[in-house]
């Protein structure tokens, strides 16, 4: 096998090196920086290994390299004589497969992993990017690296399979895109599980296929399982593409939403917007309000609210985003790029010109790297984000940062035992950034208004505060009064609550506002079809995954609210119906003698995977040619020695008297 390694390595090294150069050049291009354009075309550059452009290279470039290496290894060798020269030697088929797959995988890693590691090392060195670096930022690239390996195995598999390129051979390649989709899952554990599963399936399917040179029949059970899964992956990706295309060609209904809003006078109105345009503004007594001296309303015609939550919602960070580690602060002007670094629990500044770390800002104010302890650290748990660009919520207060002045101020030290759940600046009534800076902070029980230069105002408590999830706070012109709109946690149980608070914290008025009912569209034919096409087995598998990975954004069926569960169950019934139909349909081909002893297994498979399972059943089989039996005239399999209907054997080729055999052979 050592010789096979050497041969594959030598034969394909040049292709890997070409790939390495191309990928390195593309990565270098995405990391070019312009210090004067930090908010313009390359505004994402601070994300480094996680910038959109860089990930474009890993998402598309790695699979291309994987596919190219796989195909170069197998297709060039599949010419009949060359293939025969390779395989007719004293080695097992396993050795032939691993003799290709191991050096091929290593070459793939050289072509893609080396540039990724080199880029990570380069970015970790001071002075290359005016942004923090966290080694975990390599995770998305590493996941894409694994996805590309899946494409490599898909190419090896696709190369060895018999059949046309537009059919069975294309499916593993499409199936590898399942890994691409899995890599986009928000949570790292789910993403890595999905990608690993895809790679493993394609590897096993390729390995088993090499043992039988592409024939499904005779493969070990694990190879058959992998072949079936790779087919199912391909079909599910194809169906995903179909539905995307279907949605594109369907006429789209513009998105419409209706919400409460407030005119500058403080009057509450019902605003209906369609496709981000104000469609109608109606007062509570049903009168339509018209814009003054213009054709339509714009956002400046309404009060801008601050949104606060009295609950501490868990922070779901997308693993492909650097915001899991640090946040870019949109500070316009000044010499520095500012970040809130979660690990540091303070702000960090980088010089935009020399790209070096230039200072820290914490509860102790600004400090240079030389006396960084002076800045201190915010008293908050690690791996939690800043609340907003300039506000940090810590255990001991809500801090407001002024990046231009390089100062930090604690605007609300909580009472002992009190926690702050959210905080926000109140939008100035004139829409400009000038004027007094007023803030509002929320605790699990209450809101506190913090007008600049004035004493803080405790808003009188609402007894059933836990029934609300979101509070919008509006400030009327001149700070004469505040309007608070409490949105309920469960709109069926609780209504919206509207409160007017005077400038000295007294409740002027309080009333309930009916919840605005959203138009509920019925389930469309398309939705039913999609529901039916989602295999029952995949649904069960998905539930199991969600059950195991407890801390995810999506919830398993049994943890959903009853109403949502009832809605979801309709699609489960559609899947079940499709599975039953497919189960019945597959019984027709299963009557053939070639499936004797396999009927129960195939029936269960098709039942679990529905339409996809039925298609997979047809795709993976090596269907023998059937010809009319000379005795009974019924179609018989060419693979059987005797007719499955009448038991007669094959007739010997007809003789015409010219045959010449030795007497012993005649």
């Amino acid at each position: 096998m050592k010789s096979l390694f050497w041969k594959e390595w030598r034969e394909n090294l040049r292709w890997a090196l070409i790939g390495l150069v191309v990928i390195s050049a593309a990565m270098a291009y995405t990391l070019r920086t312009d210090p004067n354009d930090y908010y313009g075309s390359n505004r994402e550059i601070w994300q480094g290994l996680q910038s959109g452009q860089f990930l474009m290279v890993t998402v598309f470039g790695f699979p291309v390299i994987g596919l190219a290496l796989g195909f170069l290894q197998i297709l060039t060798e599949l010419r009949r004589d060359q293939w025969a020269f390779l395989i007719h030697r004293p080695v097992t088929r396993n050795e032939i497969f691993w003799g290709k797959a191991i050096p091929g995988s290593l070459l793939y890693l050289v072509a893609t992993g080396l540039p990724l590691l080199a880029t990570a090392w380069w970015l970790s060195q001071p002075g290359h990017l005016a942004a923090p670096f966290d080694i975990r930022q390599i995770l998305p690239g590493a996941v894409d690296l694994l996805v590309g390996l899946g494409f490599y195995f898909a190419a090896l598999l696709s190369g060895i399979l018999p059949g046309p390129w537009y059919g069975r051979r294309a499916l593993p390649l499409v199936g590898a895109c399942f890994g691409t989709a899995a890599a986009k899952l928000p949570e790292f554990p789910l993403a890595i599980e999905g990608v690993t599963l895809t790679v493993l399936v394609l590897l096993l399917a390729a390995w088993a296929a090499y043992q039988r040179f592409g024939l499904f029949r005779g493969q070990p059970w694990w190879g058959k399982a992998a072949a079936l899964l790779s087919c199912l992956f391909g079909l599910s990706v194809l169906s995903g593409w179909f539905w995307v295309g279907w949605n594109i060609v369907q006429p789209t209904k513009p998105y419409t939403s209706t919400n409460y809003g407030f005119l500058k006078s403080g009057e509450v109105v019902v605003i209906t917007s369609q496709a981000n345009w104000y469609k109608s503004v109606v007062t509570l007594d049903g009168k339509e309000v018209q814009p003054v001296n213009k054709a339509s309303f714009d956002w400046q015609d309404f009060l801008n609210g601050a949104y606060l939550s009295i609950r501490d919602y868990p922070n779901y960070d997308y693993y492909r985003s650097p915001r899991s580690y640090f946040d870019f602060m949109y500070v316009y002007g000044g010499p520095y790029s500012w970040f809130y670094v979660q690990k540091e629990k303070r702000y960090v500044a980088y010089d935009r010109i020399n790209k070096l770390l230039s200072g820290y800002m914490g509860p102790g104010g600004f400090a240079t790297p030389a006396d960084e302890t002076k800045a201190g650290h915010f008293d908050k748990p690690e791996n939690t984000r800043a609340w907003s660009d300039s506000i940090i919520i810590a255990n001991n207060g809500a801090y407001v940062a002024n990046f231009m002045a390089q100062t930090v101020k604690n605007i609300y030290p909580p009472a002992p035992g009190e926690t702050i759940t959210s905080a926000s600046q109140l939008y100035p009534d004139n829409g400009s950034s000038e004027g007094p800076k007023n803030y509002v902070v929320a605790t699990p029980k209450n809101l506190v208004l913090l007008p600049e230069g004035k004493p803080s105002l405790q808003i009188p408590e609402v007894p059933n505060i836990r029934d609300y999830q979101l509070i919008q706070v509006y400030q009327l012109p001149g700070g004469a009064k505040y309007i608070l709109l409490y949105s309920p946690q469960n709109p069926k149980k609780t209504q919206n609550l509207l409160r007017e608070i005077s400038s000295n914290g007294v409740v002027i008025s309080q009333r309930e506002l009916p919840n605005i009912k959203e138009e509920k569209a019925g389930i469309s034919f398309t939705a039913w079809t999609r529901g039916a096409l989602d295999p029952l087995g995949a649904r069960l598998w998905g539930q199991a995954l969600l059950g195991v990975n407890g801390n995810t954004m999506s919830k398993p069926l049994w943890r959903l609210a009853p109403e949502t569960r009832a809605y979801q169950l309709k699609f489960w019934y559609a899947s079940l119906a499709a599975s039953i139909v497919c189960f019945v349909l597959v019984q027709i081909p299963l009557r053939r003698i070639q499936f004797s002893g396999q009927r129960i297994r195939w029936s269960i498979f098709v039942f679990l995977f529905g339409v996809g399972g039925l298609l997979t059943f047809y795709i993976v089989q090596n269907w023998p040619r059937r010809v009319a039996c000379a005795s009974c005239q019924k179609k018989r399999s060419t693979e059987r020695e005797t007719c499955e209907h009448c038991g007669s054997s094959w007739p010997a080729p007809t003789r015409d008297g010219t045959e010449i055999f030795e007497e012993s052979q005649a």
Partner: protein
Amino acid sequence: MSEYVIETQGLTRYFGRHCVVNELNLRVSRGSIFGFLGRNGAGKSTTIRMLLGMIEPTRGSARMLGRDSRELTPDDRARIGYLPEGHHVYGWMTVEECGKFQSEFYPKWNDEVFRAVLSHFRLDMKNKAGNLSRGQRAGLCLALVLAPEPELLILDDPALGLDPVARRSLIQSMLYVTRRADRTILFSSHLLSDVERVADEICVLDRGVLRASCHLDTFRRQVRQFLLRYDGEGPALPDLPGLLESFRTEGELSIIVANLDSDGEARLRALPVRSIEEVPLSLEDAFVSYVGERGEKSFFTKDLEGVK
């Protein structure tokens, strides 16, 4: 140890709806040089690939050195040398590297044989395989196949595209390998002169069906040509079993027939002709008649009258 190194039983292969090898029952004796003959597309290469377990038969079975060809082990393969048509080698390797690469797989690699064959073909060890001529490449491939000293050597059209000198060298090398009595060679070819020179048994495959499998002498003996000379219109052709071809010109009728028995020959000789003479047939002529288009053909100069 079985007398036969290759045995097939009802070996059949379909490609799509086309049956390319049909119920092939073949036996190759140990120690023979076996010529595998047939026209292009007759199913020779497909049969060889089934014998070596590279493709699965649709039905039937084949045994190589006593083992089912679908279950050949690495040890079995080490005992079988195979030279595919096209003489493939890795062009980026030097001749020396080709030998080194191949030798790693074979425990019984005989470097002397390798070098002897290379020298026979005047090959330089430092040459890149990709720069070799077709004949040299064939020589290199043969060296790679012979050096492991296989018990059974299968050559798929080894002389394809070679000039007469290279073909002669190839045949000499093939004969070298059979210097030990238990060595067997199966080779397919279109070049009947080469087959005639080395083979002692042949088989003929015609459109996937085995038409002949015998000693070379038997084949020569069984395919016979007669030249009948006559005056006037000439006699009608009698109903001869085994008639392969007849060719009628003015005053002459040539008949090629297989398996002519004494009754048939008597009927032939009883025809009212001026003379009847048996004409010796070369293997090539016999083969062409055997697998070519059958039936009565004629050529008369009067047919050319009026042709401008």
